[in-house]
């Protein structure tokens, strides 16, 4: 994606072989207006994948996220056994594996893919057909789905990995759309509208478990989620993945030391497709159905959003992103139909404020707190938190008001709160005329809220400005850890 940069460096390396590092980038061709962001190709401070942590051996700290993940997956079913809770957890576990597999591409190799759902959907399709045809044990089904996904990766990777950067992204988009269009047109492939269903209890029993009840199926999904996550974590420590990191950071140099960037990319695509197929099959076990939706663009977009929100630089970033995404797509979606709007807004806010995702954001601020002490930063954080809260409240109020005006009775509770149901705007009518029919108090509340927002934002910025001279160095140090 940054071909001009890489080209300049390659030329520079060729012209001045005695100075291979260019630590200063004096002629940095891309960002003349940001000299404080020197982008070192080595990423010395990538959190999580930094080489110095690899040699230190496991510590209690590095096990903490695993423990948290296991507790999150295992504890709730013992507390309550409502069906929505299990469904939510199963969806989250599926999305965790899916997002981690996506991060093998985006985070580790720097490949942006818009067609990742194709692997998951096709893997699940193959698994469903195998399960219906052979009656194999359900326990092993995710492996079959993974194989199916990897097969598709072998095929699609041949075409896609000949390019990288933006071209790779667009080719995966085209391949993903090809699969979607084929799933709709070709008869008997995806079972048309209905999709292909399985009966998960129909397989042979496994230690007396039929996997018919939701709890048993969920236990299977959670165990596979942990196993797949551990496998991907192990994979991310292998020399092959280090080569992939090299290909991400500087393909020209990686090629110069004797590895083929296209082959490395191909290998990563196949591996990532394997785990994506696994995730798709976990979804199949959960809902007992694979349909055209499971290959669609919505799904590809969702995994991209989850991974970016969580952060690509840390291994557990995508896990956090998956939690956030399923929070929006399950819990927020059950309350309001505006959930997609909120998700898009949150995504844009994350990309603007913290391009390295929630994980990078947390790591950055943890480093600052460690450097300056909590007491000194307290005022700034409190004001910021207040400002963020107020802004969120204002945005939610405005969005719910607009949605209630547009969709009226459909919007349910919000429509009733804002005092209108039947007089919602008809399709094609401008929103302003719909809004004018609304009671006026939300407008007043919104204006008041916006005033408070402006006030707290002012205080927050002032508090941050007081910290700025000290924070300046920390920011430069941590912002060089971003993903390209």
């Amino acid at each position, binding site marked *: 994606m940054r071909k001009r940069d890489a080209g300049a460096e390659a030329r520079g390396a060729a012209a001045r072989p005695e100075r291979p590092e260019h630590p200063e980038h004096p002629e940095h061709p891309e*960002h003349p207006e940001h000299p404080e962001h020197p982008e070192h190709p080595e990423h010395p401070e990538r959190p999580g994948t930094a080489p110095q942590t690899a040699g230190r051996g496991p510590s209690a700290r590095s096990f903490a996220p695993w423990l948290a993940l296991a507790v999150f997956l295992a504890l709730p079913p013992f507390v309550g056994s409502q069906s929505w809770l299990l469904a939510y957890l199963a969806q989250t576990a599926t999305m965790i594996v899916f997002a981690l597999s996506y991060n093998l591409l985006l985070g580790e190799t720097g490949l942006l893919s818009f067609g990742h759902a194709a692997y998951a959907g096709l893997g699940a399709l193959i698994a469903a057909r195998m399960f219906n045809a052979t009656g194999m044990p359900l326990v092993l089904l995710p492996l079959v789905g993974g194989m199916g996904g990897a097969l598709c990766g072998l095929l699609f990777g041949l075409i896609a990995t000949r390019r*990288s950067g933006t071209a790779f992204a667009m080719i995966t988009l085209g391949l993903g759309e090809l699969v979607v269009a084929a799933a709709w047109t*070709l008869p008997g492939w995806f079972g048309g509208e209905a999709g292909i269903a399985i009966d998960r209890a129909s397989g042979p029993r496994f230690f007396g478990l039929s996997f018919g009840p939701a709890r048993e199926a969920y236990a299977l999904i959670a165990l596979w989620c942990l196993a797949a996550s551990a496998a991907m974590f192990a994979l991310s420590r292998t020399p092959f993945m280090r080569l992939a990191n090299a290909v991400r950071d500087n393909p020209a140099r990686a090629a110069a030391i004797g590895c083929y960037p296209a082959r490395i990319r191909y290998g990563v695509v196949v591996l990532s497709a394997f785990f994506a197929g696994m995730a798709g099959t976990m979804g199949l076990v959960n809902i007992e159905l694979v349909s055209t939706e499971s290959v669609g*663009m919505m799904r590809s*977009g969702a995994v991209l959003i989850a991974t970016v929100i969580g952060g690509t630089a840390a291994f557990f970033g995508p896990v956090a992103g998956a939690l956030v995404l399923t929070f929006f797509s399950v819990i927020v979606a059950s309350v309001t139909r505006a959930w997609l709007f909120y998700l898009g807004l949150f995504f844009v806010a994350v990309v603007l404020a913290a391009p390295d995702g929630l994980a990078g954001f947390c790591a950055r601020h943890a480093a600052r707190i460690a450097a300056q002490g909590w007491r000194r930063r307290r005022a700034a954080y409190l004001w910021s938190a207040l400002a963020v809260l107020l802004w969120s409240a204002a945005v939610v109020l405005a969005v719910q008001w607009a949605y209630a005006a547009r969709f009226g009775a459909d919007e349910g509770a919000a429509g009733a709160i804002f005092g209108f149901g039947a007089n919602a705007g008809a399709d094609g009518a401008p929103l302003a005329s719909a809004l004018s029919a609304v009671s006026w108090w939300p407008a007043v509340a919104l204006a008041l809220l916006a005033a408070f927002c402006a006030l707290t934002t002012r205080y927050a910025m002032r508090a941050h400005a007081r910290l700025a001279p000290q924070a300046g160095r920390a920011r430069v140090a941590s912002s060089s850890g971003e993903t390209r």
Partner: protein
Amino acid sequence: MQSFIVNLLNGLSYGLLLFMLSAGLTLIFSMLGVLNFAHASFYMLGAYVGFSVAARAGFWSALVIAPLGVGLLGAAFEHWLLRRVRAHGHLPELLLTFGAAYLLGELVKLGWGLGPLSAPVPAVLDGPLFSLYGASFARYRAFMMAVSLAMLAALVAVLRVSRTGLVVRAALTHPQAVEALGHNVPAVFTGVFAAGTALAALAGAIGAPLFVIEPAMAESLGSIVFVVVVIGGLGSLSGALVASLLVGCVQTLAVASDVSLGEVLSVAGVALPPDWDALTLAQLAPLIPYLLLVAVLALRPRGLFGRRGDHA
């Protein structure tokens, strides 16, 4: 077979509409280095705004106001948002446009509702232009072709002849040098982004009477436009033109044909299961742009007119 010429003309007009979109996309890509994922959403916004303006002030003012309004929005997007993440490289920029596509899609649903709308064809342009062997060629399609060609000519003229075009082309390859000479390169970027989105909105406003205006139109056309840009070679304007015409003609001819897959494949001596053989080419038409993409990339990874394959 008599209607072949008319179908070809229909395909050309569709291809030129695709070109109006892919030209803006290519312009923005070669300038800013970022593929504007929200491009098709700006197209959709142009169609909706054009619909609303046409309902009040008539079709012709819609053709002016919709591109201007959406172009201003594009300029604001570039100036306030895209510029902020530029320091972090191209990936956040692409992601930002991706998020913007979601937001624009939701805003359109919010502003105009979920249902499909149909824009009327203006009375002057209604009806057939001419008939060939019973198949008629719509006057509106001819108008669309004329506008696209005029836009192509204007684009070439501005980029090749005018002083502005000189600055834009120089800023493409040597932004530092152009800035050192006293030109405001960030403003040029904003202008190019605004021009690209305005072109997309113009395509939306013009294409609206031919297609149904609905919230899904961005997705359905957007992926085809991205395919066109990759087939033509990323960043190549002439490649975008050739690929647009290719995709437009092939897809239109496939839709209009009544040949089945079995008949096509029997020429090659391949036999498929009977329910596959019964598929008509018209049913397979949605697959065709993507199959073309795979075929072109298998033979020529950089696209038809693309430059040397990049590593990064």
